[in-house]
């Protein structure tokens, strides 16, 4: 069981590290265009979200991977996932012309349906992690000694 939880923690953390990283090393205008495609906010909020969100993904993804502030990180990332799923469902219901979800930059191309399926699975895993106390190979355990 501890090994499975460790694998889950690293998996969810790594997904968000990759997601945040791929957005941060490319021009911000790419992610701004993705947000524009979902048609749920306007400027100047688009620029703010495009700037802030990738940093939060990278930071909390790293924290979760390292088992640092595990419950806080998995709670924050679960909230992100819930919001992403809501936006994906909305885009599908409204038939918005979102060809690919824009989740991982150009590294991984996912259609909205594929992203919905993936995000739902990761949300389940992330919610399990919210309820876990610090275990082995985690910074939380080291810092709480």
């Amino acid at each position, binding site marked *: 069981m501890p090994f499975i939880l460790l694998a889950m923690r690293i998996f969810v953390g790594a997904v968000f590290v990759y997601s945040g990283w791929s957005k*941060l090393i490319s021009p911000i*205008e790419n992610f*701004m*265009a993705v947000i*524009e495609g979902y048609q749920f906010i306007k400027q100047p909020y688009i620029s703010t979200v495009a700037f802030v969100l990738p940093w939060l993904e990278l*930071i909390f993804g790293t*924290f979760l991977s390292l088992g640092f502030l595990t419950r806080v990180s998995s709670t924050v990332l679960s909230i992100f996932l819930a919001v992403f799923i809501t936006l994906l469902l909305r885009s599908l219901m409204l038939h918005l012309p979102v060809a690919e979800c824009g989740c991982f*930059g150009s590294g991984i191309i996912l259609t909205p349906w594929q992203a919905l399926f993936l995000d739902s699975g990761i949300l389940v895993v992330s919610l399990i992690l919210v309820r876990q106390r610090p275990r082995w190979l985690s910074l939380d355990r080291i810092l709480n000694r």
Partner: protein
Amino acid sequence: MGARKRYFFTAGGLILLLIFLVMVARYAHRANSSSSFENTKVKGPKGAPIQMVIYSDFQCPACRGAVEPVEELRNEFSDVIQVEFRHYPLEQTHPWALTAAGFAECAAKQGKFWEFHDQLYKEQETWAHAPEPIVFFARYAQESGLDPLTLERCLEDPKTLGQIRLERSIGAKQGVQSTPTIFLNGRPLVGPLQLKAQGKNIVLEELKKLASKLRQ
């Protein structure tokens, strides 16, 4: 040191490390992304102070949506903007984009790129949903006055595909992820909405910068 302080310093240290890593990666990315090559798909005055480089996919509806705002900007600032087209076919989502790019590249070799480009975007709705778009491409080539034998040889020449792939890889190094991506003197704009909202302001800013440099 209390637990709270340990957490505070650990969080601070990790965040600073991540900021540093991102800055290094961005710097390395920018250092590797500059490149130039011979491209005949240009229009506008040579040596113009505003260089507009467009990475585009002929099967992309958003790219079609950018054609008009590009032309409006070019018409408004015709003396100072040079437009350069570079291929960026998104083959995973647009199965005929590469073929269209091939025909357009061959039209460029016969000096008819822009006519062919305009035709492809104007008729995109027709050919993009057709079972055999090649039929349409051949017709547009004929209507543009392209020599059919030269066109055929060009389409079969591996250098044609090589040129398209080169332009795409340069775009990828510059951070292009979707189309259309337009660079105005190196400043990126993604999609027709950003172009319409910010294109003119960027052109005016660049002209102001140039004017103040000339005054010095």
